[in-house]
């Protein structure tokens, strides 16, 4: 029998039990749909995280103070006081591949303009911070080296802060705001950067010269972190090692073990984030895989029922000359048609769900060609795998007994 004839036969016999075929297919539809949608959500969230990590800046390294043991109580990283402005300067001077280095301190404070106020964080940095973070000024300009030297009371507002204090889309350059009762002149507005990987609003911040924040707002000397920009992606690792060496020498210690600071690269942070979203992706995909498995078992079940129901038909076919493999092919093709049809419908369902998730939840969702071919391949494999056993059972029937079957 030609394959086309077998296919036509399979379609006809499936069409005879439309509801049953549909319900059997539904298992695979849901399974494949789930696989596609889950992979799309996983891929989308990974892309999002990657984009957000890229938004950290270009080739960024971050130096954190190491955690410090105080009488057995280990304080959180960043809570100790070992990083200083000098460390940042030395990194910038001694490491040629470190194109920029900026210390950073951050305090949270209420800021006021006339009757409006807003709680935000004020970050004290060097002017080159914007270059490190790859951050643009939307209006006005960055503060200068002389502002830094004179601890000038100037600031740059993030978009969110500007919106909250001056109204949506306002351009308050030249206005004053009060931070802890000190007037600060707004000299620029930062371009919107959106949310970071953890979902917090990066635009909800105020930038001010490092010296201003330290002297006028905090009264301290230690930096909470130092941001460093490497000359190129390939140099990141070597810059990391050099920072460890330079800072270690300053402290009269070498090697990571005794270091009271930690250097993290953008890649490190990316890897950690990726590992999380990957684990989530695997979890989602395996749930989807399980539903596909259940769908496959459904097909096997129905095919076994079908073989039993049609024992006499099989006997008749064998009596008129069907060989074992003809019967095997007939039932196998039926199972494959079921699962492939289910797979295609599942792909449509999965794409539709992905689209809906994007529309309703605003999550970026990405249906890849890979996941489509995976869904298609999987459904075909399910058909072959779960169709094989019932088909073989049919092919091995004894024609005499099959003809006698009531």
């Amino acid at each position: 029998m030609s394959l086309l004839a077998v296919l036509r036969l399979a379609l006809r016999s499936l069409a005879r039990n439309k509801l049953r075929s549909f319900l059997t297919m539904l298992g695979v539809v849901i399974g494949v749909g789930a696989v596609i949608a889950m992979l799309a959500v996983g891929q989308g969230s990974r892309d999002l995280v990657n984009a957000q990590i890229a938004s950290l800046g270009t080739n960024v390294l971050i130096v954190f103070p190491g955690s410090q043991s105080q009488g057995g109580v280990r304080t959180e990283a960043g809570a100790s006081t070992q990083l200083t402005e000098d460390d940042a300067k030395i990194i910038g001077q001694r490491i040629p591949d470190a194109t920029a280095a900026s210390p950073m301190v951050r305090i949270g404070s209420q800021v006021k303009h006339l009757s409006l106020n807003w709680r935000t964080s004020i970050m004290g940095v060097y002017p080159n911070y914007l270059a490190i973070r790859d951050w643009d000024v939307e209006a006005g300009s960055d503060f200068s080296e002389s502002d830094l030297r004179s601890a000038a009371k100037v600031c740059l507002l993030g978009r969110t802060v500007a919106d909250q204090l001056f109204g949506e889309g306002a351009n308050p350059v030249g206005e004053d705001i009060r931070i802890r009762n000190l007037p600060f002149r707004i000299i620029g507005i930062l371009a919107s950067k959106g949310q970071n990987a953890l979902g917090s609003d990066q635009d909800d911040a105020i930038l001010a010269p490092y010296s201003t924040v330290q002297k006028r707002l905090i009264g301290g000397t230690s930096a909470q972190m130092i941001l460093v920009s490497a000359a190129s992606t390939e140099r990141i690792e070597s810059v990391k090692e050099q920072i460890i060496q330079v800072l270690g020498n300053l402290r009269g210690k070498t090697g990571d073990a005794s270091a009271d600071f930690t250097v993290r690269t953008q890649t490190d942070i990316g890897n950690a984030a990726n590992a999380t979203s990957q684990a989530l992706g695997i979890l989602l995909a395996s749930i989807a895989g399980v539903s596909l498995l259940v769908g496959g078992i459904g097909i096997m079940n129905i095919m076994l029922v079908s073989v039993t129901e049609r024992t006499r038909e099989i006997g008749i076919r064998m009596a008129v000359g069907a060989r074992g493999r003809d019967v095997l092919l007939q039932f196998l093709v039926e199972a494959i048609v079921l699962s492939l049809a289910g797979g295609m419908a599942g792909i449509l369902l999965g794409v539709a769900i992905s689209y809906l998730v994007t529309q309703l939840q605003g999550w970026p969702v990405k249906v890849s060609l890979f996941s489509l071919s995976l869904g298609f391949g999987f459904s075909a494999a399910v058909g072959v795998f779960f169709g094989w056993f019932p088909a073989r059972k049919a092919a091995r029937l004894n024609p005499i007994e099959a003809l006698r079957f009531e």
Partner: protein
Amino acid sequence: MDNPLIELKGIGKVYDSEGNRVEALRHLDLTIRRGEFVCIMGTSGSGKSTLMNILGCLDTPSSGRFMVDGKEAQTLTPDELAGLRNRFMGFVFQSFNLLPRTTALENVELPMLYGPRLPAATIRERATRALQTVGLGERLKHFPNQLSGGQQQRVAIARAIATEPLLILADEPTGNLDTRTSLEIMGVFQALHARGMTVIYVTHEPDIAAFGTRVLTFRDGRLVKDEAIAQSADAATQLAMLAESERAA
């Protein structure tokens, strides 16, 4: 062409299930020539069904030699047996065994789908011709449940002859039919026989056995009687007589 169509030499068939040994056929010698119209009689358990299965290449003998058209057939693989059934045998069953929800035409086309590859048009043409031969040229698109028992059996006969087999094997073809329809069906077989077809059929009824040219009687796995019938009954004549008596009544 001088080979006997079927030649059985010392055929035995033993069923051995769960220590229960049953000798269904014991040392059977039998030759069937082309153009014979053979009736097999016997009570149940006499071995006639076993013989039909072996003749029909549905089963293989436990011992002895079985030759179809001069070719050894007792050692064939299941696939080779399927090929023999397809090309050389046509089956007619007591319960018709048509595929349900499949038209008469498609039922008749079935054996040709499993045989040597033929164009669809040729298959359709042959099936149509076979149905015309059995007098169902007008019922090509009917489903089995739209046909009477006699008509269903005619479809089954058309299916059996569509591949132009060497031999038609009919297992109690009239067992489920009333007298009138039985006569009609035997008339179809006689017409096929008249055209040179070899037919072997099983029956319980002496009336039906009388239409053959040779009657084999089996008992306990042995052939106990093999008689030629010089003057077979004629189904067409009997059908006419039946019609007359019905009109008289």
